[in-house]
């Protein structure tokens, strides 16, 4: 999460020393946002803000002019002052919009404006304690029930918040403005993904499994961190030993959102390096009927005239072909909150030839590099056994990446990387991943699988399985929900760039989300039986 950092303007003791602790009021001006130290929000410009802290030594606070990082919680009301509830809802229009302004520079609240359906309504806030609030009936904007989706855009000074009403039960992809920033949300009946476009070259920030209403990329919300540092999926581009830093700040433009007959598709594009005419694209395809996301990343080294470099010598120096050559390397990084503080719990699996590999570092801040073998099985799985959280990555078996993994105090990562290659203008590189996440999984030298479930619209439970199996394994599955068992054949589908993906969907019309789920896929049993997940899910 991001936080505000300020410059102190004054420090005032507000209570006497009691039990070696003192309460102080610190006045400051916003300086930047942490951790990237980017610009503070425009609405805080020249504003003197105040917080209170308890200290044992006044010198911890510092003096006027000093750096004052705020915690995520302390920062929230200044970074995201304007909020509308609900921010996102499904199916039915909310009766009212609850607007709150948690900070304003004056005693008197400002005007707000709401725009929807071409109508614009202006109003003033009421003040309750330190918060300005307003409630507005949504009926004011529509004379009849509108077709969804619908957006209500609330503006106030330079702040903006949006309430989006989406159709229920319809797979879709759409741009949303959430309190923490802009995301593209892609959803089917299994998952709800939030894809960051404004940074990280388009990465996956949230992966909600709808059946259990859990986010596989949950993160410690109270710590200052880069958006996908501790949890999320991001792709990497290499022009040398280290991943390109440009990807971390790269904003992507949306070049299309498409509903197809049986899938939603999102296209993002960004310019990674203008000087080298280097572009990158992401296509995220979410099929309606499977717990699967197909993620395709490309890096293009374009031909064409480079923009002039301001300091370049006028005289053209002699060149050899190597001068036009560029190293192109690529990889990705999936990061998850680790279980049991990295000492045990979370682990990852992959396989090559007939070898199953399991990896978990017991030491923190440790990079594990597997340079002696490639993931020729074409799959890798990350397991968090305590929270029943499994994510399966499938990729091309014919040119597989090498496995790298990093263990942080709160993070475990899967960081495969492909071998770099020389490239010249006109060349490109890329990879395609098929990713599935669920609550049960199995691994063996013969393959890996993941299963998840979702509520059926008219009651009952639908279970889905995604697997990659050795060719010799019988493509069948036995799925158990409570005491109900179904045997099903697996469907083999060729996903271009990934290869054969085995899948099955099984309905349990009498099933309930509260029953434990398990499966045997091919000859691979579940690593742990499923557990009751309550009655969550929409």
């Amino acid at each position: 999460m991001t936080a505000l950092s300020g410059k102190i303007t004054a420090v005032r003791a507000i209570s006497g020393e009691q039990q070696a602790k003192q309460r102080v009021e610190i006045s400051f001006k916003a300086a930047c946002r942490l951790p990237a130290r980017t610009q503070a929000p425009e609405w805080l410009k020249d504003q003197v803000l105040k917080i209170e802290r308890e200290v044992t030594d006044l010198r911890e606070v510092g003096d006027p002019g000093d750096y004052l990082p705020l915690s995520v919680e302390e920062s929230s009301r200044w970074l995201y002052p304007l909020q509308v509830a609900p921010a996102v809802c499904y199916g039915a229009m909310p009766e009212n919009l609850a607007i709150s302004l948690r900070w304003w520079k004056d005693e008197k609240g400002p005007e707000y404006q709401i725009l929807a359906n071409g109508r614009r309504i202006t109003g003033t806030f009421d003040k309750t304690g330190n918060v300005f609030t307003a409630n507005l009936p949504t009926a004011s904007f529509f004379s009849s029930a509108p077709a969804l989706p619908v957006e209500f855009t609330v503006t106030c000074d330079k702040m903006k918040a949006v309430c989006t009403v989406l159709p229920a039960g319809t797979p879709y992809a759409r741009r949303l403005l959430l309190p923490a920033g802009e995301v593209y949300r892609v959803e089917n009946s299994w998952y709800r993904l939030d894809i960051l476009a404004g940074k990280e070259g388009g990465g996956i920030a949230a992966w909600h499994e709808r059946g259990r209403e859990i986010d596989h990329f949950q993160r410690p919300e109270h710590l200052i961190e880069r958006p996908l540092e501790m949890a999320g999926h991001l792709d990497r581009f290499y022009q040398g030993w280290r991943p390109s830093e440009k990807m971390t700040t790269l904003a992507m433009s949306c070049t299309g959102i498409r509903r197809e007959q049986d899938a939603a598709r999102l296209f993002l594009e960004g310019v990674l390096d203008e000087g080298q005419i280097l572009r990158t694209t992401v296509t995220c395809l979410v099929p309606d009927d499977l717990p699967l996301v197909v993620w395709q990343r490309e890096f293009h080294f374009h031909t064409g005239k480079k923009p002039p470099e301001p300091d370049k010598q006028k005289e053209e120096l002699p060149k050899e072909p190597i001068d036009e050559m560029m190293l192109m390397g690529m990889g990705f990084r999936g990061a998850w909150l680790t279980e049991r503080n990295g000492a045990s719990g979370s682990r990852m699996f992959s396989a090559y030839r007939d070898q199953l590999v399991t990896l978990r570092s017991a030491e923190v801040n440790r990079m594990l590099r597997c340079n002696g073998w490639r993931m020729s099985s074409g799959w890798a799985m990350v397991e968090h056994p305590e929270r029943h959280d499994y994510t399966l990555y499938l990729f091309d078996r014919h040119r597989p990446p090498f496995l790298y993994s990093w263990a942080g105090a709160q993070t475990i990562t899967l960081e495969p990387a492909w071998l770099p290659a020389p490239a010249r203008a006109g060349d490109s590189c890329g990879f395609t991943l098929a990713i599935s996440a669920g609550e049960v999984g199995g691994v063996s030298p013969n393959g890996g699988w993941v299963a998840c479930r979702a509520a059926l619209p008219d009651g009952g439970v639908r279970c889905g399985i995604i697997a990659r199996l050795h060719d010799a394994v019988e493509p069948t599955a036995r799925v158990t929900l409570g005491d109900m068992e179904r045997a099903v054949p697996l469907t083999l589908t060729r996903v271009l760039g990934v290869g054969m993906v085995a899948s099955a969907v099984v309905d349990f019309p009498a099933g309930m989300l509260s029953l434990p789920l398990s499966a045997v896929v091919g000859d691979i049993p579940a690593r742990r039986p499923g557990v009751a997940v309550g009655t969550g899910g929409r």
Partner: protein
Amino acid sequence: MDTFSPRTFSTDWEVLVFDRLGRAVGTEKLLAFAGALRDELDLPVTIDWNALEYTAGINTSFAQFRERLWRFTERAEQLLREYELDLYPAGTHPVERMTQAGHIHVGTITDETAGIRLENQLFRYMPAFAALAANSPVMPGLRGQYKSYRVRYLANYDVTPVAIRDPQCSQQSWGTDASAKVYGVPTLEVRIPDGPSSRCFLAEFATFVAAFVHQQGTKVREEQPGPAEYREYLVNRWVAAKYGLQATLSWNGEPRPVVEILGEMLDDSTDALAILGASRADLPLIDRMLARRVCQADWGMTLFARYEDPYLLAAAFGKLLRHWDAFDEYLATAAPLEPVPFPDEEAILAAHLESIGEGTHFYSTREAMYFPPPEADAIIALLEGRGAITRELSPERGLVLSRIDDGHTLLEEAP
């Protein structure tokens, strides 16, 4: 016999520098400040990666060292403040990955043979110095489990355990806890200490280390220590990193509080201290630290509970670090800490087992306490014999180990 003549000493004290957005200042800009300070103070101030390095020149007395240190700190502070920068003197930082040391150079030595023999004699005392100087209880993602993460993790391989050397079969060495470095400046360098936060501590500590090494230099022995003594040193090194001055070391096979050992080392250095113009009475801060078993790391750890976020912790601690006497003041009122018993063999095994996850390369177990091959392999065999780990060998991955959790290999389906 006097291995050191004339008797001199110095320090390389690495200090990070931060701006008022909390960013560490990089090498190129630090070079400018180092140049200005070197020119003005006529001391070989330099940089080491992203740290400003105070190199104190050649000192022959406590008073001279202290005076130069005060002059450097005051001038550096003023020069940096012109650019709204602050020094961050500590062994580690909650956000930055660099580690900082306060190396002590002891001169003047040109006899490398004697220097190597002295290394073999001095290494057993290095954990005691590490405990006294412990000042790195936090690293990115880690806090509080060790009082010197820098020593525990070898300062990114910038300070490794001493390897016992035979002068007849030696090449030059670099980067160990203590080594003769006559190929450069004619000194024996003690590299194990964390970068200090208190300049008063640095002045007392550097003089103490120098006097102790000088004293040892008057009785250099030819015999080489054996494996048992070497193992004792490595376990002591781990214990010192973990517990600082609360540590109990193993001393000739018997448990002994590190503060007692340090007290004895101070007493043994009386004559050598006198040559440097000091006596134990001139080192009151160290005496108080020993009496209370409180090191600089304990001071830093008092902030942990109130600043969970590393950025907030770095800012609060950084502001305290501006005050050169802040640790000294803390120490004056700090409650004494209790000693922690020396770990038994089961605890040593457990520390090794903790280094093993799944598919862990067997060499990672070496990093638990840096035992040499026969001892480290014996521990692996013992853990395997007890059914605590499994081993797997493949040409592609080499020998890898996996911990067995509650009687089940983690590769099996859990119960």
